[in-house]
């Protein structure tokens, strides 16, 4: 029962992992909607900026981005706390992937819907807010669910910039006890359990979106 003694340290790490993952999902969602909407609705300049952001963060590896922000940026005088760096980079990374989901869903809203909105004299902002987004949101949810799990998995990389998350704690315990099989099995199970919980949360949100938010009252009144 040696592995029982790992639990307190590992669960403290798991809390940090959870915190980083949830923050990255929240900030990443903001980035995803901003960039996705800019790609579809923004003018030429705005959509170009969004395109550059998306390609830059999707086209390079997360670990390269993390190290770039952690080691390289301080050399030109910009530095953050490791945790802030971790959350920022992870958010921007998954936000770039999320923006493609937002873009795809917005573009899949049928032309007739846009024509109808036009006939009803809706402005562009009104059309987006009351017609496109509510329908697109339902389309996005399954893909967002996968991305949330992806975020949790990728968050393990922040252990490499000295943040004491679950993976980092596992590494330190292993270096102390040399019980690789026990520590890493427990860690893998920990991540799996957190994934399942996250999946459940995303399903719940999906159901909420499907039921109500897709057709808000504001659109009828």
């Amino acid at each position: 029962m040696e592995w029982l003694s790992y639990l307190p340290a590992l669960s403290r790490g798991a809390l940090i992992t959870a915190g980083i993952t949830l923050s990255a999902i929240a900030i990443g969602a903001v980035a995803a909607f901003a960039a996705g909407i800019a790609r579809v609705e923004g003018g030429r300049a705005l959509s170009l900026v969004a395109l550059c952001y998306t390609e830059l963060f999707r086209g390079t590896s997360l670990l390269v981005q993390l190290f770039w922000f952690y080691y390289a940026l301080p050399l030109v005088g910009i530095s953050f706390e490791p945790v802030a760096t971790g959350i920022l980079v992870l958010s921007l990374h998954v936000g770039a992937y999320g923006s493609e989901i937002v873009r795809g869903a917005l573009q899949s809203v049928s032309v007739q819907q846009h024509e109808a909105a036009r006939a009803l004299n809706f402005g562009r902002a009104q059309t987006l807010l009351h017609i496109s987004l509510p329908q697109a949101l339902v389309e996005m949810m399954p893909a967002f669910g996968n991305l949330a799990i992806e975020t949790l998995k990728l968050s393990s990389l922040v252990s490499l910039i000295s943040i004491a998350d679950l993976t980092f704690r596992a590494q330190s315990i292993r270096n102390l006890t040399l019980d690789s099989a026990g520590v890493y099995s427990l860690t893998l199970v920990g991540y799996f359990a957190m994934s399942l919980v996250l999946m459940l949360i995303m399903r719940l949100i999906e159901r909420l979106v499907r039921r109500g938010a897709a057709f808000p009252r504001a659109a009828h009144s």
Partner: protein
Amino acid sequence: MMYGFEWDTTTPLSYASSILPIILIGLTVTLQAAAAGFAIALVLGLVFALLRRSRFTAVSWTTAIVVEFLRDTPLLVQLFFLYYVLPDYGITLPAFLTGALALGLQYSAYTSEVYRGGIEAVPRGQWEAATALNLSRLQTYRDIVVPQIVPRILPAMGNYLVAMIKETPVLSVVTVLEMMGLANMIGERTFEYLVPLTLVGLIFLLLTLICSAGLHRLQKALPKAGIPLR
């Protein structure tokens, strides 16, 4: 590894051009690791997909759980697991192979879903027709199923290959000297990380853009109805 190389840190440009040869050696390692990992993922994914379709519920359920587990846990931890636990059981692999194996294991979970989707997209009627025509299981797969699913799954597989290339820097933590590991090493020696890391980022960006363009062309070139095997 770094012996015989000299760098010139006077200007960013001269620095970049002096370390480019080293980084390009790293690029070959990156590509080899991705190729090896992808080969493992293609084979293992197919095995998982076929086991998933087994008539025995115990087999198909176990496979489903294993695949889910592989998909929902981080590559980094799986890599540590393989790197530190396998030697405890007498299996000592070179770091490169351990890394390729970890990549392959993680992505086999994804590829197995692609295979499964492809197989399930073949209409039921065709399976029944194959039975009616007295085709064996092997013949059904060889002549009916595979020709139809290959063009269907190729784009998705290509996307996973690109994703895998972008995940290879993780292997640097178990001493595989791919592009980013080398860039880090150079940074440690010169205390100047900006140029090497930016260079690696740019090479990755270029690589992904080329791969995406290639995939796009492939997708257009593929026949929609299926390819004849013979």
